[in-house]
């Protein structure tokens, strides 16, 4: 079994290399053989064509089929128009997941930039900077499922009076008169707890990017500002922050996308109970528990529409930067 797989893999890799090589050679020859006025178009077609084709097959195709399915009934047989969308708009569970996803999209980017920036700026000022950064970056390497399990232990609840096995409740109840909190059941804390767990896995990533951004600000600028009598806060607020803005945008859009596709942490920690469903878990339930392809596809479409503006904005920022060069 394993050896056949290995042989197949090797054959596939070699075949891919050979085909690419032949394609490059033949493409080059084809273009140089063309009349000069057609060369531009030919080059674009030959070199970009395969990429466009692959994107069409793996991305555009499924997206269109999802869009189509969202207009059909649960089994995908009968056309029902916008019924799935209107049902979704009247379904408490889906509305709550929509509300939660909005909460995620707003708070995760803001929090991760705030925490990441604070860590980047502060870590910059200590001698053992690389150690601090490595430690803070560690959670990024932990899978979301493991993070979810870890945080479930951290947030464990035991009734008042019993020994608190959850770290957070052990800390909280150390304060006299404070009763333990059922973090994952209490509706005022559970969504925040889930976002917090995600933040823990992502803040290190934000820190690394922002730290690189900070590093790229020329030292002369800070020096000049200091000579002009700027305080450290003014230096940060008036010089570094504006120069860092494009990096912050990158981090924020990344986090917004992570927030929109949040699934694992929620699935592991609450599975959407007590009003913690997000769009992705709600879609999963519609698809695999309720077996309703139509509604699941409608939720997927809503998700896709929500991500699109962020991606368009991201691309625009890149373009502007490229032109500015």
């Amino acid at each position, binding site marked *: 079994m394993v050896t056949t797989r290995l042989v197949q893999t090797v054959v596939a890799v070699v075949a891919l290399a050979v085909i690419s090589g032949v394609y490059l050679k033949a493409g080059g020859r084809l273009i140089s053989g063309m009349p000069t006025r057609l060369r531009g178009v030919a080059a674009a077609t030959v070199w970009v064509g395969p990429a466009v084709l692959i994107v069409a097959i793996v991305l555009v195709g499924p997206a269109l089929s999802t869009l189509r399915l969202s207009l059909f009934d649960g089994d995908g047989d009968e056309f029902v128009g916008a019924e799935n969308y209107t049902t979704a708009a009247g379904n408490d569970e889906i509305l709550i997941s929509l509300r939660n996803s909005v909460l995620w999209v707003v708070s995760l980017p803001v929090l991760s930039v705030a925490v990441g920036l604070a860590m980047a700026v502060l870590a910059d000022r200590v001698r053992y900077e690389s150690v601090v950064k490595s430690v803070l970056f560690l959670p990024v390497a932990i*899978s979301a499922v493991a993070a979810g399990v870890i945080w479930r232990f951290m947030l*464990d609840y035991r009734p008042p009076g019993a020994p608190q096995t959850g770290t957070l409740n052990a800390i909280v109840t150390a304060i006299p008169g404070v009763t333990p909190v059922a973090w994952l059941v209490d509706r005022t804390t559970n969504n925040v707890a889930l976002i917090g767990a995600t933040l823990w896995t992502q803040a290190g990533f934000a820190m690394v990017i922002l730290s690189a951004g900070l590093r*790229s600000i020329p030292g002369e600028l800070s020096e000049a500002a200091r000579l002009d009598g700027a305080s450290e806060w003014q230096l940060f607020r008036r010089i570094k922050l504006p120069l860092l803005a494009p*990096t912050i945008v990158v981090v924020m859009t990344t986090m917004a996308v992570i927030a929109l*596709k949040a699934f694992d942490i929620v699935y*592991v920690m609450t599975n959407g109970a007590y009003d913690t469903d997000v769009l992705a878990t709600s879609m999963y339930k519609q698809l695999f*528990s309720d077996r309703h392809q139509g509604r699941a596809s409608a939720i997927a479409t809503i998700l896709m529409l929500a991500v699109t503006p962020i991606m368009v904005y991201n691309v625009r*920022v*890149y373009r502007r930067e490229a032109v500015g*060069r």
Partner: protein
Amino acid sequence: MGRRTRTTGVAACWLLLAVSCGDDESSRDSTEDTPEGTTAVVPTDGADGSVSSVPASDGAAGSAPSEEAQVEAAQAAALEAAGGEEIGGSVSLLGVLGGEELDDFLQVLAPFEEATGITVEYEGTRDIGAILQTRVEGGNPPDVVSTPGLGQMAELAAQGEVVDLNDLIGAEQLAANFSPSLIETASTDDQVYGVFSTVNLGGLIWYDPNAYDGPTDPESWEALIQWSREKAAADGVTPWCIGLESGAASGWPAADFIDDILLRQAGPEFHEQWWRGEVPWTAPEVKRAFETYGEFATDETLTYGGVTTSLTLNFANGADAMYSDPPQCYLHQQATFMGGIIASNFPDLEPGVDLDFFPAPTFNPEFEGIQSVSGEIISILNETEQSTALARYMATPEAGSLVGATGRWLSPNSQVEAEIYADPFLRRASEVLQEASGSHYLGNALMPTALVEAFWQSGLDYVENPDELDQILSGLDEVRVEAYAD
């Protein structure tokens, strides 16, 4: 400046790619490696995220000679099931068990592996409804499924995804080893889709004889609740403890008991109409069953730590407070398998002395002696030499007695005598079953998946907000209408 930011952007994209790859992997982790199940699962909180995808250990022979004889007999039976030769190879098995329960279940399979050379790759998940559906739709079904969710297997059987065991094992062999009612429970109109591997007697109330001073044979449910209220008022100790948390399947312990109450309060006939989707959830009988459960479960003064604790406590730790010093509760409602879980949590307990059970008292004199059962079935999705051998093995009395020998489950095999139960609980449970005027399968294992999951969820909702029972029931009825529509 522009160039630098662009570099940062590219770096960000690379990292993003890495992150999203990580996400893919972890979601796969979550589907494959989260154990814990629906009717019978992990003993500790800690098992929640641990990996349970382990091959069965070989060589399970215990020290007692009778055990050795049992194992040898099982090996012979396994070899016969495999057509008399060591086939080798492997069989994938998707189930809901984890932790020590899984270890014990694998003990039943160990002689099979030993004798046939077949490796059983058990994969445990508490989210079997969704996982199995994904695997089947993705064209990658496990060879064998071991599940308490008969309703889902019936759905898959109707879609032609499940192998008919009448062909594979043979109707005669089935009839020789299982009671007609068990065979019928795991059948659709035209095929047998599963063979029972374990059976649990439901509706039991566990207690610590050293601490509990209430009636052990209460004449009615009202009498038991009456005692609970008086005890709570007199001692200030909450008599009951409840644990409803179970990951993706949270709420099932509540649903199981409501199911049991409905069966014994409204009668088997209504109960069957109910799980077949023929009567609305808004019927007064259903409402009454919920309210009967609520008499203790929604009463803050009767349950350990109140409702919040019931909701957050993992079901496997549900009875732990009975053994804290001093006890924080005296009674815990759960099926037979809970005895094994409590014994795993507190290895020093002596069964019968420090832990015992009595069947929940009569809810309605009209249906006295009716008991509820649940259990797991083995179904074959991929017919291979190995999976066929496994199904045949599980239908033998030798495998059946090993199930009983685990001390966790009753054996479904009708050739297995009550004497094989070394465990006093199981022996008594099997007596209770024999004396029962009728035993009926729990409805929440037989319903369509969507309704089962909504029912479990409703257990949490009702305990949290008992005042909203009417809305909860009409919500469930909407799910029923849709689930039975096709």
